[in-house]
């Protein structure tokens, strides 16, 4: 079981036995208008064979977190601090040259829009074989064979022919399968999927999710699934981490998040999902806007949009930022007490 727990930001935290352990990860971008705090003190751990869903709306820091783990922010102006221990190496401080060895081989990544993420000028097969060649001492022939085999494994029919076709010859779903083949060709132990189904037709989404789960089971890899779609989370994740304003506001096993929701923001997210019985014009959005990452509120980041802040009283929510408290593997960052949350949940 994956454990999601908090720890005070301790200096020089030591590596544990966890497969991936992220401690107090923060990412800031200097801009002309000031410092943008995209990720603020993320903590989580992940074990092999497990799937962690990171959920949140646009701008909540999901993608930036994944890019920081991938080391894709190295060489940019982004300031990444904290710790991300992976196989005894800290991904935050690892130099770019060493990070490059991990990328593709130990950590694979799948992106949102497979059309723009694939190079339009090279054949799909070439792009997959390229990923194989860079990490394996192999001939071009062997790389081609590996890529064809991988294309077959991700369910692309007649892979030998499809190898020589260009991305624009592929349908959206087939492109995402090709992306998955590219990310998995070196059998990485950790796979990060950044909104892998968002750009796809609903009918194709389930196929892609099934495929990812299947391949994950085969290779016993760990999967971080970044999405804004709670339906996707419910389908494939073991654990969930809900992000808001660059912070984790609630985390825990997927069932607990859905059936024992502890944070008003998560409640809002669940409530805003339309169901078949939702009548036209009856959507339930969370009122207000996400906070500006240039100037985060001093208190709870969600307080400005929270309808239950007055239950806490004394303006505490606006003044004091709640810590992430963990009880039996279920973490929340909220001043509301357990009984208050239960009252809120049952009253809806």
């Amino acid at each position, binding site marked *: 079981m994956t454990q999601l727990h908090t720890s005070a930001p301790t200096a020089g935290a030591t590596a544990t036995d966890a497969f991936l352990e992220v401690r107090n990860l923060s990412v800031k971008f200097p801009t002309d208008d000031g410092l943008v705090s995209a990720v603020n003190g993320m903590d989580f751990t992940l074990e092999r064979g497990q799937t962690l869903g990171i959920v949140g709306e646009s701008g909540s820091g999901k993608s930036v977190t994944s890019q920081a783990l*991938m080391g*894709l922010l190295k060489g940019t102006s982004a300031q990444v601090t904290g710790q991300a221990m992976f196989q005894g190496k800290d991904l935050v401080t690892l130099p770019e040259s060493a990070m*490059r*060895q*991990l*990328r*593709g*081989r130990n950590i*694979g*990544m799948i*992106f949102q*829009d497979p059309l*723009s*993420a*694939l*190079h*339009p*000028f090279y054949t799909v097969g070439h792009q997959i074989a*390229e*990923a194989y060649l*860079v*990490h394996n001492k192999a001939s071009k022939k062997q790389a081609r064979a590996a890529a064809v085999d991988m294309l077959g494994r991700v369910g692309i029919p007649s892979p030998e022919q499809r190898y020589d076709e*260009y991305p*624009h010859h592929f349908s959206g779903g087939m492109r995402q399968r090709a*992306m998955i083949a*590219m*990310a998995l060709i070196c059998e990485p132990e950790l796979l990060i999927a950044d909104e892998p189904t968002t750009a796809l037709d609903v009918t194709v989404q389930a196929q892609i999710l099934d495929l990812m789960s299947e391949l994950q089971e085969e290779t016993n890899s760990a999967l971080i699934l970044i999405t804004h779609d709670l339906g996707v989370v419910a389908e494939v994740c073991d654990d969930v981490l809900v992000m808001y304003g660059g912070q984790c506001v609630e985390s825990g096993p997927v069932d607990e998040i859905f059936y024992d929701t502890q944070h008003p923001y998560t409640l809002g997210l669940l409530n805003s999902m339309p169901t078949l019985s939702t009548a036209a014009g009856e959507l339930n959005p969370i009122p207000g806007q996400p906070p500006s990452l240039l100037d985060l509120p001093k208190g709870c980041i969600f307080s400005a949009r929270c309808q239950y802040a007055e239950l806490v009283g004394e303006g505490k929510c606006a003044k004091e930022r709640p810590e992430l408290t963990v009880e039996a593997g279920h973490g929340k960052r909220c001043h509301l007490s357990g009984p208050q949350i239960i009252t809120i949940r049952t009253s809806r």
Partner: protein
Amino acid sequence: MMTFILRRAGSLVLLLFAVSFITFTLFQLGPSDPAAAACGQECTPERVSEARVALGMDQPFFLQYFDYVRGLFSSRMIGAPGAQTLCEWPCLGKSFQTNENVADIIARSLPYTFSMAIGALVLWTITGVGLGLMAALRKGSPVDKFIVGAASVGVSLPIPVTGLFLLLLFVNQLHLLPFTTNEINSPFGPQGPGAWVANYLLPWIALAVLFSASYIRVTRTNMIETFGEDFIRTARAKGLAPRTVTFKHGVRAGITPVVTMLGMDIGLLLGGAVLTEQIFSVPGLGFTAVHAAISGDLPVTMAITMLAAFFVIVANVAVDLAYAAIDPRVRLQ
């Protein structure tokens, strides 16, 4: 692909007819009288009309044009009745000024223009694309700012200024390079490639300063945009080396606008770089065209105009073919 080339060749022929007809018409409408010019200073009206007959300008307009076009397909007789001479195919007429075959004049001027264009092209492509890429890779750094600043200066320097400055500095003051001579027009001549380079280096630099500035800017803008593309992030996420990401994935995708520019510029330059040829006294097509136009030498002007149009169109076809080679999404039809 063959269909594409054939179709473009067809439109090339039509366009050349249009260009020749327009030039021919403009010449007839113009104020200059080639017969008077050919006959010289002290000229009686009789001798002017004799000259007019000799030049074939006594004929009706359409007959003159028809005769001219006929010469493009076969040899024809040219000159006044009784004193006709054979103009061998391809007959582009004879110079009103020197009575020389225009085809010979073109054949003589072309190597100079080629010599100038090729070197300049190589020089500005390398510096333009190279510096543009360097600026894009170091976006926002002092290196980037310096390159962009230098490009702004370069593009605003006219050829007469850079040309004369280069001559003054390298030829007059430092004596590093010889003054351009007409004796060298090919790297395979008796003087060898070294002398060829030394002879054309200054015009190459003058043209490169002007042209590379816009290449720097186009390359820089397009490469910055390309480096921000998702597929570049994918290439990095695969663990590819920075060099592979930059060149194999980045440059190939970001270079297409430069190819377009290059095609246009090659076409224009092969038609003759008028100013540069004047300043460095290179007797290429541009130089010849200016003198022919001033002296009302219709056959020479016509031929060079058509040749320039030909080069521009061929360069355009070459750009389309290059696009298809670079980008598999491009279908030629």
